[in-house]
């Protein structure tokens, strides 16, 4: 029987929601096509993750365990993926689009001599491969693409599909895998500034994005306060991450992360296309900017023209009231 393989991204023992979105899509395609949906966890400690996964409808769960997977490193991950793919010969290998999967997608495709599609927003199976849509030209244009052969390896944008919970009686199969440190050519020296327990930007229901208009400590404090009232993740435009005002991992846009929250609030963001490329799929967009001609207002559902330093204090108070009711 043909299979669809979903790689499950794990961060500090927690499954990334974007992976569950991809798994849910693969489950659906498997049912439609009479295929089997397999979820794959590659981690230093995959068992608890495999248990959690039983809530999400995969037909089978495969795990690979090795201490080398404590941190992301492309060489062992590639080797592990290639081992699994050669063993189960899936029609599709699907990943959530993350910096981790982007790091290996091309190399895995070349290794398997497989067709690959990066960062798709929709995909379906054809007789001979996969048909998909992917945003191009800074997400201004959608291209319809096809990939031929088996497997097709692909990554999916976060927010493209809903997570469907479905209890499954999937068994967990452990795939043997050996890898020792001395096989590593590239070595990890240090991890700098991992975000820890902060809300994951690419998965947040509410995102507050700070732009050039946020000029000083006072502005940052207002952004923090708004985020804490709404239990939101904080992101930033490239101008502010480059200036070192916000951590580089918080950059939203073509170079940084793609977000698709229920609510996006842009604070002092003008709406350059490179930024819009990373947030245009947000459900509700609120923009606060003092320039009435800022391009962000062309896509904002609620465009507030004004000085953020004057708007945010009463806005935060009003939101607190609404929340407490």
């Amino acid at each position, binding site marked *: 029987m043909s299979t669809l393989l979903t790689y499950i991204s794990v961060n500090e023992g927690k499954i990334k929601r974007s992976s569950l979105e991809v798994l849910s899509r693969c489950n659906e395609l498997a049912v439609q096509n009479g295929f089997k949906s397999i979820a794959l966890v590659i981690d230093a400690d995959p068992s608890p993750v495999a248990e959690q996964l039983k809530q999400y409808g995969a037909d089978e769960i495969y795990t690979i365990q090795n201490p080398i997977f404590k941190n992301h490193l492309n060489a062992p991950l590639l080797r592990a993926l290639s081992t699994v793919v050669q063993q189960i010969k899936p029609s599709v290998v699907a990943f959530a689009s993350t910096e981790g999967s982007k790091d290996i997608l091309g190399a895995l495709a070349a290794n398997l001599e497989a067709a690959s599609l990066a960062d798709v927003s929709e995909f379906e199976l054809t007789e001979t491969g996969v048909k998909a849509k992917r945003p191009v030209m800074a997400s201004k244009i959608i291209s319809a693409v096809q990939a031929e052969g088996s497997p097709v390896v692909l990554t999916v944008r976060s927010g493209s599909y809903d997570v469907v919970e479905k209890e499954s009686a999937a068994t967990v199969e452990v795939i043997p895998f050996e890898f020792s440190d001395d096989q590593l050519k590239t070595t990890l020296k240090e991890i700098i500034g991992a975000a820890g327990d902060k809300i*994951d930007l690419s998965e947040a229901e509410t995102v507050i994005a700070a732009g050039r208009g946020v000029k000083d400590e006072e502005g940052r404090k207002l952004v923090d306060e708004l985020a804490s009232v709404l239990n939101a993740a904080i992101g930033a435009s490239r101008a502010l991450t480059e200036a070192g005002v916000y951590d580089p991992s918080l950059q939203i846009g073509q170079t940084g992360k793609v977000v698709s929250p229920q609510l996006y609030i842009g604070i002092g963001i003008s709406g350059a*296309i490179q930024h819009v490329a990373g947030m245009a799929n947000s459900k509700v967009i609120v923009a606060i900017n003092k320039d009435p001609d800022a391009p962000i207002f062309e896509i904002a559902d*609620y*465009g507030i023209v004004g000085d953020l330093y004057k708007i945010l204090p009463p806005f935060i108070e009003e939101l607190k009231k609404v929340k407490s009711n």
Partner: protein
Amino acid sequence: MKFYVCIKQVPDVNAPLQIKDGQLIQDADRNILNAYDASAVEEALVMKEAHGGEIEVVLIGPEKAKETIRKALAMGADSGSHLLTTGDENLDSFSYAKILANFFKGKEYKFILCGKQSQDTDAGLTGTMLAELLSLPYATNAVGLEVSGENLLVKRQGDTGQELLEVPSPGLVTCSNDMNDPRIPNLKGIMQSKRKPVDTISIADLGADDTKECVKTAVLSYEEKPARQAGKKYEGEPDEIARQVAQLLDTAENVI
């Protein structure tokens, strides 16, 4: 240290675009050096200035794309190789990588630098495909590079934090535009670029015919993204606006 930098000419995403019968219509005069590749060239120049060495840029593209090689030479690269296409080949990422891999076979180098993706398609596949085809250790999404003996110390932007990796030579690194601000060529650079050597090789001579069989993906058509409608604009008294919008986000949108 010899660096190769793979560069690409791409349409400027800021230029006006049109779609006609599912095809993307662009003004060829608005083609530019891919911003991520420009950062890779810049970083190679910085390393050369500090440690000496040589930089060769490699580009796959039609005749017109030679101007982009000249741009990189004007920035300060020493030489270029133009892997010439007719423009009708419909190459995908894997066939680009195969052609580049054939070009690099037998060549001596310390590191190959690439942009992490091209700004028109944002696929970001070719770099790591090339690394795999050449069996090179690699790192992607670099935001900082430093020479360390024969190796490169790469600061990579990961999902949550940054990773400091040591990549041995020969190796490959794909670069983010968050790494630096690429220099704008000055007049002297532009004049010198005209005398720098550019080698032109037809992709047919690099096994492009064989790569036809490698083309596994194709673009079927393009469509405009459904435009978002601008909503309501609020101007005036901050307290009143704050109250109205907060209420609507709660009652009308149900997102609070």
